[in-house]
């Protein structure tokens, strides 16, 4: 089954053009490939779905920041403002909390971040809410470096894509309020900006998996196939007791090696259509597993959200509107491609 949205004559023309480009020289081939990769218009639907999921996770994260705002961002919190330089790169890692001189100001700052995340979720004033959401995330993370972890890295990755792309062009209040003449809520004109944004998330995600996998190669337990036990036996992470696996070392071995191979191979094998489904399915399994067994559900959901950048718009449309898609003809769906590769 094809995973890309079947764009107009994409396969035939692109293969031929690659050869044509190569005839014109190696450099021209690279330029053509680069332009095709980044600047082919794409359906913005996956970006809109990513926006909603990111907005929900970010809003929840903002609420949790607010639960103990003085400890996270206050002068007498976990880390005094004059000590932040010890853990991040001052003055470049800016934060609006550095200007907050009172508990009220801290709550106003956190409240602005929460409001922006909610607006981002519903898609109201989306370009502005995406920028403010990113500023809120960066402010919180840079002010409280003792308290951040992979969730914040992933939300940052997603928000940069949402700032760049037209994530409010469908499935949004912006779309709804923009007038009835724009067609159904899930439809929007394919655009280069949507493609650039999705590509940025895809490439960044591959960088994350590459370095995460490469870092594991430094550890003996990953080579020995015992690393997963280290996560299972760690009582500070445990939310699902899997210690019964102690009697099944080969299962632990297989799971460890599968995780390592998946992470290392992801940057290469998520692109071909043949292997993409397998790698995305493994991503869902690994991240849900981390969420359920280690209590990091927000991180797991954020990583799965980032993986949605590889999901073709047609498939997302099928999941969201299984009946309406059958009613509509091909001509009524956006003609842009989803940014896959081969």
């Amino acid at each position: 089954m094809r995973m890309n949205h079947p764009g107009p004559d994409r396969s035939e023309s692109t293969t031929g053009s690659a050869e044509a480009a190569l005839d014109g020289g190696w450099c021209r081939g690279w330029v053509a490939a680069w332009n095709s990769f980044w600047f082919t218009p794409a359906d913005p639907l996956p970006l809109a779905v990513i926006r909603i999921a990111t907005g929900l996770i970010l809003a929840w994260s903002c609420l949790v920041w607010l639960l103990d705002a003085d400890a996270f961002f206050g002068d007498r919190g976990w880390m005094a403002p004059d000590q932040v330089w010890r853990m991040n790169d001052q003055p470049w890692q800016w934060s609006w909390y550095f200007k907050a001189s009172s508990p009220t100001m801290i709550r106003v700052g956190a409240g602005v971040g929460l409001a922006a995340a909610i607006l981002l979720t519903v898609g109201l004033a989306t370009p502005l809410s995406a920028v403010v959401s990113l500023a809120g995330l960066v402010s919180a993370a840079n002010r409280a470096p003792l308290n951040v972890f992979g969730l914040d890295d992933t939300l940052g990755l997603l928000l940069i894509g949402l700032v760049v792309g037209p994530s409010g062009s469908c499935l949004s209040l912006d779309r709804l309020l923009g007038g009835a003449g724009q067609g159904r809520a899930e439809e929007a004109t394919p655009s280069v900006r949507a493609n650039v944004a999705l590509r940025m998330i895809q490439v960044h995600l591959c960088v994350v998996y590459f370095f995460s996998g490469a870092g594991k190669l430094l550890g003996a337990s990953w080579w020995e196939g015992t690393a997963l036990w280290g996560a299972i036996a760690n009582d500070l992470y445990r939310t699902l007791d899997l210690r019964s696996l102690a009697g099944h070392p080969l299962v632990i071995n297989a799971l460890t090696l599968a995780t390592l191979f998946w992470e290392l191979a992801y940057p290469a094998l998520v692109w071909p259509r043949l292997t993409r489904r397998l790698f995305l399915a493994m991503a869902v399994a690994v991240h849900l597993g981390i969420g359920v067994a280690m209590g990091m559900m927000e991180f797991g959901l954020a990583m799965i959200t980032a993986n949605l950048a590889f999901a073709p718009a047609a498939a997302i449309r099928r999941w969201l509107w299984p009946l309406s898609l059958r009613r509509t003809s091909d001509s009524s769906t956006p003609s842009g491609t989803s940014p896959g590769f081969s």
Partner: protein
Amino acid sequence: MTSHLRISRDNSPAIHRGWSAAARTAATAALLVWLTAVILPPLAGPAPASELASRMLQPLRPLVGALFLGHGYRFFAPNPGPGHSLLWTMTMPDGSIRSGRIPDAATDRPRLLYHRRFMVSEKIAALVPPADAPADVQERAKRDWQPLVKGVAMNLLRREGGLSVRIDTVEHYLPDPAEVISAAVTSDAVSPLGTYAWSEGSAP
């Protein structure tokens, strides 16, 4: 191999429908800067890290800092190690003793709040060398972890209203499968991180 890539012609209608050549050139420049800012940080740290990547990263520090891109992405690497918590024992104004731990799964809810507090103990413990490390290593490391522990102490004193607080780091023993099967009794390693009181001029 390159010929197997399915790419569109540079001047194909699909590409030109969007952006002009000038716009694509400008976007390409911006994307290359962004790509460099994404790839260099994990090469530049944590250790082992590349000196070249670290030097190349210098001019990009404003961008990396502003967009929160400075990550190593080495999740559970090189090996998933033992977890760490902080134990605190506080003397209250009436002379009573109060104690607790960071993180505390029983009280730190929701789970995301627990994780945000868990990171405090994990990041501080990462700076504390093993008890058998040479004295000069211990002393150097103390200059890094002590200001952070002091911040934790001040936060606890503010929250609980105490006079002084003693803080220990606990390395939770990571049992191997055989120890779990035999239900072996194991003990955690506790390292003292000092006792802290309100300093002059910083009373609650």
